[in-house]
């Protein structure tokens, strides 16, 4: 049996008095797409940020491809080369063009020369359908285009794992589709993704597993059919039906 690509083992995290993650454990294999859902403040973002150590955990272990990445002597910059992240509010580098955003890591982290980096950068922009916007600055792009550049930027580092923190929730509804389409393509290509999102269409069609996080605990974890049709915990059903109503109101 090969190691899981990502494993969280009894992870705890608190901010002062507030316990945000209380013993979170799960595993995902290479090629899996796990979608994390849960109410606001349940610790979804915190959990993602612990994986690439933008946030330090209090106790427990996180393993990436068999290596414990929460060891004190882990080089966080090395870890982050292997784990890409896509943000809710894009966080594109505002002073760089789309191509500049994608190539900064290649040049300054991977140490590539400019020409090679640009060549690869174009390929990644192509992958998200934006090679014609290579020279546009973030302010000149629509929200959907920004997020696709954000995805290309993360992809460019050739990560083992991609983290998405609500990638579509800052977008106008009509722009959600283009980003979800790109994510679906990535899933089909076998890229391992851990996605915090309430985009249920994506979850249903692309997720290997859905993880329901509530109050810092995993309440339910299973394939989409099971969660949607036959939730094991009462809270899961409640939350899903609330999501549904919220969606209909939109």
């Amino acid at each position, binding site marked *: 049996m090969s190691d899981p690509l990502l494993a969280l083992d009894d992870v705890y995290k608190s901010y002062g008095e507030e316990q945000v993650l209380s013993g979170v454990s799960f595993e995902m294999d290479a090629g899996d797409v796990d979608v994390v859902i849960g109410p606001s403040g349940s610790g979804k973002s915190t959990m993602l940020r612990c994986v690439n150590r933008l946030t330090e955990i209090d106790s427990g272990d996180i393993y990436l491809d068999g290596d414990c990445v929460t060891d004190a002597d882990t080089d966080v910059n090395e870890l982050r080369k292997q784990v890409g992240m896509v943000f809710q509010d894009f966080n*594109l580098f505002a002073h760089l063009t789309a191509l500049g955003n994608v190539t900064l890591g290649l040049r300054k982290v991977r140490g590539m020369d400019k020409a090679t980096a640009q060549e690869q950068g174009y390929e990644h922009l192509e992958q998200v359908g934006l090679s014609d916007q290579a020279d546009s600055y973030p302010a000149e792009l629509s929200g959907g285009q920004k997020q696709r550049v954000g995805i290309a930027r993360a992809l460019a580092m050739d990560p083992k794992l991609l983290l998405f923190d609500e990638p579509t929730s800052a977008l106008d509804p009509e722009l959600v589709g283009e980003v979800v389409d790109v994510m679906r393509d990535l899933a089909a290509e076998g890229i391992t993704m851990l996605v915090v999102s309430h985009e249920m269409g994506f979850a249903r069609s692309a997720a290997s597993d859905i993880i329901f996080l509530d109050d810092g605990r995993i309440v339910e974890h299973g394939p989409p059919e099971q969660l949607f049709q036959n939730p094991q915990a009462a809270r899961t059903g409640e939350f899903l039906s609330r999501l549904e109503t919220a969606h209909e109101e939109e």
Partner: protein
Amino acid sequence: MGTQESTTAGRTLRARAAGLTDQPLTLLTVAGFWTWLVVRWTNDFLLDGALIDRNTSFFPTAPFEAAASTLGGLAASLGPVGFPVGWVAGFFEFLAASIPYLPQLATGVWATILLTVLGIALGFVIAVPLSVARVYGGTLTRSVALGYTELFRGTPLLAQLFVLYFATPLTTIIRELPAVGTGFIPAQAFWVAVIAFMLNSAAYQSEYIRSALNSVPEGQLTAARAIGLSKVDGIRHVVLPQGLRYAIPGWSNELVYLIKYSSLASFITVRELFERTDAIASETYRYTELFVLAGLLYLALVLSASLLMEYVEDRVAIPGLGTTSR
């Protein structure tokens, strides 16, 4: 891609052209001023007075004197209603009287520019790490940077000049250096003033840059770190390029201030514009003419600086990054 590039370039060019044609008078003044300065310095410093004697102005005084006396006569003959003509006559008198001093003042302008440019440039080199320490440093580096800033912003620049010049061995050390005070290289007092302006200006510049860094959204550094850049590299490649652009307007203010504050160097005998003006005035007793003239020269320097900074701002402008929406 080609078209994209050319629209970006086109926009910048247009913005630049608009900025300059907005104020043709300023542009003309500044161009004339610099033509005169460059020709004057070339003649005086490089050509050893080949074009014209070092102490002789390029501009003749006779026509202005003639105009002044003609208009003066006219004003007198007009009686009580002649006073506007009298003012014009006075203006020509001023020109005739001050033109002979222009060559000496041009030498002072050279020292003033050198002092300001060195002070602001060296100060900038200190200000950047200082402001980064203020925003991103630990408790210790942050308080050291804060202490530095408070010390140099909280005490008079003149006091700093005096302390450095009289109370430290700096003057003696610099005097002993080879070549100081020979040929083009100014004497020790000038270098002490450069150091004082560097230290003082670093404190002010770091305040402008600090608040500019604070206006760069936190997510920018987070994103930089998320692709594997170290904190220092993230600051260098992501935060600073944005923050320094935000800092340009405030930083331009500091440049304008320093041009005028450089006159304080006259108190430690630096032969810059103010010192030259004062020295000639006390020899000739033409205080009014000389200080009005010096004032006009400072004004021309300040206008040049504003124009230059406007150009720089347009040059480095990026769509959507603060300073473009002017």
